[in-house]
């Protein structure tokens, strides 16, 4: 179902707020995976604020939907989403990366309420999510499992083992999303290890593929609606995104996979985010191309 304009505005504001909180978290942490946090933020926002059946007051609710952050290094993006929802005190974000803090670069499900799986070693999330999806079906339960992968992560062989198995077991209660920001640590994905034809790869493994603009809530909503209607094949959403979206001086730059902001850069980042939020709200911009510098499609 298309988003109402009110809903869209609400999501835009929330994503903007979370991006800012993520920038703050990077500052409190000293440094962090800012680029991938910005590219994935609209995906995480629409999932947690529109689609997922969750209750932060009852984090162990048996029939909750599960979200697995397979690209586990964007803890500085994901922890703000959870803190904002009330899974834990937002103040805790100020201790990110501190000695003895429950919050570190890769979030630990044993320490951080709301985190469903301890990820960080790339390529693991889809298998874990598939195990959950198969378990839900075996137990006759209707909750869904969402797995967010990075595109560079798809170099890992395990991803394709899991993809093969998800199709084999017809895991239609599993939604796979790839944050296709086209960057990895050492360079653009197509230069380091080419993924294209990427959608064809997923199709060949038995998925129905929905490509969308990962920075356009209408486009994301259409993709999730399609995924939720899956009948025989699991659905993979390839969300075309821009690494570092919204922060002009890092957008589309693979070198900003990881980094830190001083006071000047922080102010510049927030100013840039505000400008892009305004543009999206005005409907004048939005979409993967809006803040891209060589990223997007």
């Amino acid at each position, binding site marked *: 179902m298309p988003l109402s304009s009110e809903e869209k505005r609400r999501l835009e504001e929330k994503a903007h707020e979370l991006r800012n909180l993520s920038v703050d978290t990077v500052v409190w942490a000293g440094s962090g995976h800012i680029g991938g946090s910005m590219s994935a933020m609209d995906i995480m926002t629409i999932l947690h604020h529109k689609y997922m059946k969750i209750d932060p007051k009852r984090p162990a609710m048996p029939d909750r939907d599960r979200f697995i952050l397979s690209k586990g290094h964007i803890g500085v993006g994901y922890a703000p989403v959870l803190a904002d929802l009330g899974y834990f005190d937002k103040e805790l974000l100020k201790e990110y990366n501190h000695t003895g803090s429950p919050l570190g670069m890769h979030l630990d*499900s044993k320490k951080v309420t709301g985190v*469903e799986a301890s990820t960080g070693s790339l390529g693991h999330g889809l298998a874990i999510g598939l195990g959950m999806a198969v378990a839900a079906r075996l137990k006759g339960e209707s909750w869904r*499992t969402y797995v967010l992968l990075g595109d560079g992560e798809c170099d890992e062989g395990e991803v394709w083992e*899991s993809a*093969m198995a998800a199709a084999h077991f017809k895991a239609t209660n599993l939604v796979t999303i790839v944050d296709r920001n086209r960057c990895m640590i050492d360079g653009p994905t197509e230069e380091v290890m080419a993924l294209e034809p990427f959608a064809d790869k997923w199709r060949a493994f038995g998925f129905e593929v929905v490509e969308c603009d990962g920075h356009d809530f209408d486009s994301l909503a259409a993709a999730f609606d399609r995924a939720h209607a899956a009948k025989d094949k699991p659905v993979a959403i390839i969300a075309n995104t821009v690494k570092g979206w919204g922060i002009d001086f890092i957008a589309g730059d693979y070198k900003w996979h990881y980094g830190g902001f001083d006071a000047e850069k922080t102010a510049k980042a927030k100013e840039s985010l505000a400008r892009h939020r305004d543009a999206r709200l005005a409907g004048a911009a939005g979409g993967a191309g809006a803040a891209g510098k060589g990223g997007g499609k």
Partner: protein
Amino acid sequence: MSGMTFTMLDATKMSTAEIYGKTLCDLGEEHKEIVGLSADLAKSTKIGMFGEKFPERFFNVGIAEQNMFGMAAGMAKAGLVPYVSTFAVFTSMRALDQVHTDICYQNLDVKMIATHAGLSFGQAGSTHHCTEDIAIMRSMANMTVIVPADGVETAHAVRAAYGRKGPVYIRINRGFDQAVYERPDYGFELGKAVTMREGTDLTIIACGSTVWRAVEAARTLEKVDGLKVRVLNMHTIKPIDAEAIERAVRETRRIITVEDHTTIGGLGSAVAEVAAGTGKSFSFRRLGVPDCFSIIGLHEDLLAHYGIDENGIAAAVRETMGRDFEADENWDDEV
């Protein structure tokens, strides 16, 4: 033994893996949340017996161990209790990142029954031998490591694994094992070594397929040499029975460990870690596969080749008993 539905006579006719398969079928009747997973080795590991009985609760993931252990983690997170079986070499190495991060880190109820361990798949060569798994698995936090001595003990271990919170690694052999127990109710207790023979001259601490051989060696040494050799079956490598080791150091002063595994990091190392902490002087020797990739051959012949069969163990005992270390002027009992 509660719930054991086969007799000792049955046990002698079944391979160790078949006893595992049958035990898992029985457990599966009792506990509906148990599921089985294998990676195209359902037949070889005998988890296929569970799969035939409970087809809807069994998942063959094809030859893809990493995905299998990851799926098992996800299933455990969702409240199921997965028993996962493939060869030891693939459990401990091919999918180690998944075992470490998905299962151990999150302390999940995944039970890994790894077959074809040690040199038991002798003719398959070093791609299928597994002489490193005890060292690897016992270094994983939260992990319990069990190396049963025979089929009956495997049945006990598979049952005990269900009741134990967190990941459990059970290492069994390909094919048949010599039965070391006359009765199934010998008192298996996780984390407690079984005294197979009492003795005061020396203690052999063994696990898995070397237990029967250690007992045979001790029997010969008593008959031929008049030696009283204690034999401990250290079936649980982690948590190890420190008390039994400390008692052996105090009471027999000579310790020999025997394992179908490299001498680096396995049972011998685990025993040494405890024994060295006693502050007592003692004579110590580790028998196992030396730091090499094994030659090819039948399991029996490989154990003989590396001196971890009855004769090799007996020879090591005699040599250790022959050492006049107590006459050494530097020998100091209480350090």
